[in-house]
């Protein structure tokens, strides 16, 4: 898929010989049929076979793998569950995939201190399951939580439905253990509320496997709310639904979740989950409240009032836990539901200021005509994070190229509207060109300097997340931001 990277040429035989010195046979995959399952992550449009896959079982092995690759100049791509949606875990053709799949132990759940220490290959949901007996849970809940790993969550700074109120991964991780490309292990953060020196934790979280390999994570656990209830409202007009979102926030309410689906998404999911969604609505809003029963009753009453005033057609409040889960089922199953009505879909991930929602949706409607492809919209409305699902058929010549161009236009519009090319899925390989749209040369150079501070020889996940200036120049989007030059008041130098 990607063009060959002239920067690296690996002598596989020499590499394999070195790896065999400390990796038992079951921890090293070399045959093509064994490598095949690793050729892509959740973004299946981009594929590449690695030279080898290492499945270490101990941190000492991780250290030895990294030392070996460092001394031989071999690229390394860390991998969790491979559910990433931006091609972040796509292998390097001259490199090794370092899978953390066997680091799947929950090392400690501390009830009194409300934290858990886990290995990076532990699944997100498993942490909440382990904490449940203590009335605690881990708040960030990506829709992929049954599969995705904490290591991947840290690398992508993943979010979920609850992050409007409870924050992203960066707000919920206390400490990580990291191994550098040179094979040096160190710890960042602590169980205390802050750590001495720079906030390297913030820098590492969301760094897409470019700065170090995470081998242990300490996460914050929070008390499980006594009750959660969801209000479902339908709107005849998308703009009205967008305004309703703003009105809820303006009323001083930060719901536990605030999600929207447009008509195309509802049409895809209703036959699949039978949640009782209003099929005539142009937009459906789901607003969750959690807390003590008293708190929830008070908040639900206020939300209902705001939604009525905002012109909702129909408002329903879940009356039982089963009904609450049913209301959510459609939103949670939106991806697979869309997957049933189209051979392929391309999931985008841009953020915009909430007030630009209606504008964005009408532009997407125009793009559907322009590219001749349908698009369903589901999004984290509360924080302006959109997930347009562009439907295409990979077997039709030209379809993927049009889907890709469609997606790029959405991302570039997100930046133009004051948002970002990614809210939670990361840049990976997918949005590398759009980085040139969001950032100008000085910032991209600064990112490269940050990278070099951790990984001087650039062996960790090369080609991902931060584009080369050369690439930006080729993409032709250098310096152009919001349609004009950044900091026009400053002289150019």
């Amino acid at each position, binding site marked *: 898929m990607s063009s060959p990277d002239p920067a690296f040429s690996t002598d596989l035989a020499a590499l394999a010989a070195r790896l065999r010195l400390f990796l038992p046979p079951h921890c090293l995959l070399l045959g093509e049929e064994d490598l095949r399952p690793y050729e892509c992550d959740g973004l299946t449009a981009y594929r590449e076979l690695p030279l080898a896959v290492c499945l270490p079982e101990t941190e000492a092995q991780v250290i030895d793998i990294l030392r070996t690759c460092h001394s031989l100049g071999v690229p390394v791509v860390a991998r969790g569950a491979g559910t990433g949606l931006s091609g972040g875990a796509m292998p390097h053709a001259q490199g090794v995939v370092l899978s953390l799949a066997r680091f799947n132990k929950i090392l400690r759940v501390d009830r009194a201190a409300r934290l858990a220490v886990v290995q990076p290959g532990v699944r997100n949901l498993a942490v909440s399951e382990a904490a449940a007996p203590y009335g605690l849970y881990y708040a960030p809940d990506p829709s992929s939580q049954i599969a995705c790993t904490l290591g991947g969550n840290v690398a992508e700074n993943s979010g979920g439905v609850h992050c409007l109120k409870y924050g992203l991964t960066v707000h919920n991780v206390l400490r990580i253990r990291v191994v550098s490309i040179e094979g040096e292990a160190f710890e960042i953060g602590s169980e205390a509320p802050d750590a001495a020196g720079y906030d390297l934790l*913030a820098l590492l979280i969301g760094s897409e496997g470019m700065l170090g390999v995470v081998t242990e994570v300490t996460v914050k656990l929070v008390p499980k709310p006594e009750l959660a209830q969801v209000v479902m409202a339908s709107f005849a007009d998308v703009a009205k639904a967008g305004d309703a979102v703003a009105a809820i926030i303006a009323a001083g309410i930060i719901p536990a979740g605030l999600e929207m689906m447009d008509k195309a998404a509802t049409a895809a999911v209703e036959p699949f989950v039978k949640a009782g969604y209003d099929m005539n609505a142009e937009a459906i809003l789901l607003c969750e409240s959690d807390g003590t029963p008293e*708190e929830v009753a008070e908040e639900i009453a206020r939300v209902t009032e705001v939604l009525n005033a905002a012109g909702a057609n129909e408002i329903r409040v879940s009356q039982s836990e089963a009904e609450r889960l049913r209301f959510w089922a459609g939103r949670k199953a939106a991806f697979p539901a869309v997957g049933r009505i189209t051979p392929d879909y391309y999931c985008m991930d841009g953020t915009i200021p909430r007030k630009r929602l209606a504008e964005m949706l009408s532009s997407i409607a125009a793009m559907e005509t322009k590219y001749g492809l349908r698009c369903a919209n589901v999004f984290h409305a509360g924080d302006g994070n959109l997930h347009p699902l562009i439907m295409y058929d990979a077997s039709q010549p030209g379809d993927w190229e049009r889907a890709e161009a469609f997606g790029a236009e959405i991302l570039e519009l997100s930046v133009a509207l004051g948002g970002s090319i990614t809210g939670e899925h990361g840049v990976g390989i997918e949005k590398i060109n759009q980085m040139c749209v969001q950032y100008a040369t000085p910032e991209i150079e600064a990112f490269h300097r940050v990278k070099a501070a951790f990984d001087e020889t650039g062996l960790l996940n090369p080609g991902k997340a931060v584009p080369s200036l050369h690439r930006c120049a080729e993409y032709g989007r250098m310096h152009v931001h919001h349609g004009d030059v950044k900091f026009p008041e400053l002289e150019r130098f």
Partner: protein
Amino acid sequence: MQLDTIVSAVKAACESRTPLRIRGAGSKDFYGGLLAGEVLDVSGHCGIVAYEPTELYITAKGGTPLAEVEATLAEKGQMLAFEPPHFAGATVGGCVAAGLSGPRRQQAGAVRDFVLGVKLVDGTGQMLSFGGQVMKNVAGYDVSRLIAGSLGTLGVIAEVTLKVLPRPVAETTLVFACDATEAIRRLNDWGGQPLPISASFWHDGQLWLRLSGARAAVEAATSKLGGNSTVNPEKHWNSIREQTHPAFAASPLWRLALPSTAPCPELDGLRAIEWGGALRWYAGEVDGDHQAVRVAAASLGGHAVLYRAPESLRCLDGAFAELPPALLALHRRLKKAFDPQGILNPGRLYAEF
């Protein structure tokens, strides 16, 4: 003050390798390593750039007084949830650079949790813009949050965007009589329950607990927890936020960040406990063995800051806990990445850079 004045000052300093001491209102001169270099006063670069209550953010220039930011937010019933002190002149740039949070930190998060974007003048006089004004943005490395608490060593904060939150509908404060050990036990026990606790403070046998949230939730928690209501909760929490409470009247004053469940270290002079047990304040003897404080904090899994102390003492081994070699090396390289000549606030964070 125009931004280009700051830019040209930094450029000139970079060329002549003149150390600069970035100054907001100077309300933090007591904090961190020794002050060195020519003063670069940035307080004139001020003003609120954008405020969107329904988007939950405010953007202000670095020199904007915090009081102005907070007053603007209050008009719309919103707040900076990390509750930084906003007395006499403190600026938003200094607030982010210092990275200190107030009483609500335990519930709401620290300064860094609310930084959405920054515009920086780096150590070569180059303008850099990271993050933005939206809640979720994972494009590129999160340099904005790295800046929080960096004490002006990575760049001059020209502009910052902070996430804001609605003020809670209801608030009440309860008081309990107990010793420090019991306070820590109770705070951790309550912390594991779904209670709307937004601040805690222990001093001299009394534990104050603030509850915030929906009226019904605060009332339900109040009847569950018992305790007495104090006379003037607002005045009380303000005295903690601004450190005018007698508990902070000590020099030197040590700030220990510890795991919330850590027992009380074997140290004399415990003055106060905040943040659900995780922040402990100690008064120390001027000529006492201050390594003992550092060792005690480290052995409990935390660290100690020599928070307020005479210069002579801060000189001795710095204000902040020593970094392990691997981290110190990373710090040096990051410092170089943003300030290759090492001219910005040298020695303010660590003597080494």
